[in-house]
């Protein structure tokens, strides 16, 4: 099934330097990298970002082909953004047909935006590909803990996210099974107009909801049976600790960000 081919958000097992970094370092690093893509104003800047990202991907040991597959899912978004930018940017027209016109600035912006989007996706998928979902939510919980004073239930949010991530494959499997069972009864999920198709989803959605509730009830029972009662006073099996690796990474991230700002100040194309 096509749903299974989406690599965006998947974990790629490995033991590289990047895999071994503390999830908090990776989270902050990724956020800073994403911000840097919006600081960059020139192609030279992007080139610098791309080289840095390339080195990180190489270090992570995730095959480039595997990463690129994640792009497929959002290709439509990228093309759509580029096309809109291409036609909608005002400036010196170089091609015109009726109300459609392309300006020199439009081409520049379209390419610029496409590169930015691709890098955004590569940057964030590097995080998810090298960090186990559980480690990631643990990291987020720790990072958001200071906000607990403001009333943000960081443990509960993290637990919800862990559970959601954990059950994505389960629910996909369930969907697949129910779809097959209904197809065997002659259900058709692929043809008809929008209304017919929406109606055709009922035989899929009703059993899926029933399953989801059943799974949720079982899980809640299993958690309570093991005395789960929220985040207060809860300890971890795998504690997180910053190592020498994380300190080096922190210095590199700061240096990278400084370089991006410096390049942004230079009058470059």
């Amino acid at each position: 099934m096509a749903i299974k081919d989406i690599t965006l958000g998947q974990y790629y097992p490995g033991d590289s330097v990047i895999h071994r970094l503390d999830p908090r370092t990776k989270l902050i690093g990724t956020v800073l990298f994403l911000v840097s893509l919006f600081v960059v104003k020139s192609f030279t800047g992007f080139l610098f970002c791309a080289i840095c990202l390339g080195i990180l991907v190489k270090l992570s040991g995730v095959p480039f082909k595997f990463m690129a597959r994640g792009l497929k899912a959002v290709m439509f978004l990228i093309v759509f953004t580029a096309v809109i930018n291409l036609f909608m940017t005002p400036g010196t027209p170089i091609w015109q047909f009726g109300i459609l016109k392309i300006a020199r600035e439009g081409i520049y912006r379209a390419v610029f935006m496409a590169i930015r989007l691709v890098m955004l996706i590569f940057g964030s998928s590097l995080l998810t590909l090298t960090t186990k979902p559980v480690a990631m939510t643990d990291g987020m919980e720790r990072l958001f803990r200071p906000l607990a004073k403001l009333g943000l239930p960081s443990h509960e949010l993290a637990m919800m996210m862990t559970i959601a991530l954990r059950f994505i494959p389960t629910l996909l499997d369930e969907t697949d099974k129910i779809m097959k069972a209904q197809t065997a009864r002659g259900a058709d999920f692929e043809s008809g107009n929008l209304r017919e198709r929406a109606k055709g989803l009922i035989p899929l959605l009703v059993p899926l909801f029933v399953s989801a509730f059943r799974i949720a009830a079982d899980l809640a029972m299993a958690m309570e049976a093991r005395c789960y009662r929220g985040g207060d006073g809860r300890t971890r099996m795998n504690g997180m600790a910053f190592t020498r690796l994380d300190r080096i990474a922190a210095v590199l991230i700061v240096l990278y960000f400084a370089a991006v700002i410096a390049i942004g100040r230079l009058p470059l194309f």
Partner: protein
Amino acid sequence: MRIEVRDLGYIYSEGMPFESVALEGVSFTVESGEFAAVIGHTGSGKSTLLMHLNGLMKPTHGCVLADGIDINEKTKEAREARRKVGLVFQYPEYQLFEETVLKDVCFGPKNYGFSPEECEAKAISALKLVGIDPDVKGSVSPFELSGGEKRRVAIAGVLAMDPQVLILDEPTAGLDPKGHQDILDMVKKIHTDRNLTILLVSHNMDDAARLADRILVLDKGHLAMDGTPQEVFSHYDELHSIGLSTPSASELLHLLKQKGLNVNPNIFDEDEAAEEIVRALNNK
């Protein structure tokens, strides 16, 4: 209806790093009206094989013929042939979704364009066949039924499409001993009453030996054995080497033989096995 599988092969995620061969070179024919059991270890390709038999999965190579028609063709005859192969999945009760039992059973025939009256007639006859009284339970929500009843209703949902071949993937999984026996008796009754061709996937060798005329053994995507229960279950060592066993009566006789009692271990029926043990003890 006669089902012919020719050199069937299926590869999951072809060309990807997770590529795995689920089926390879599987060929067999199930004659019209035959009752065949498919046994195999978890992951031997049983479920994949079943889904090929009514076109839910397209083979990577080879083909499936129903009365000589390739079911994966895009013709009307092929679609009709697919309808005649009814597939009941594991835990089929999870497919129930309608407001009432009767409506749910009507879903299949409705999809194939039968008129509402025809659908209802088919549904009522299917419900009777699985032992659910349509007058009592027909207007009840399927979610209010007991586990065993839900499963019967789900099976009726497939029978309502008037299949000529009925494939059941472990229809007794998760039922208590009585529910287990009831479902198997029902399958037997469907086989005799409607003269359907039946393919039953089972983990239970006793059931396979008792019900089937024919046993297909799958191992790692290959057809390892194909024959009558008598033939297949006499291969004690081979079955054990692929993680299967023989019926419990035969297992016991094998143990007795190992311990020195002179019995014929290739007996699969409990009563006959008891007689064999008594005979052996009297001859001692």
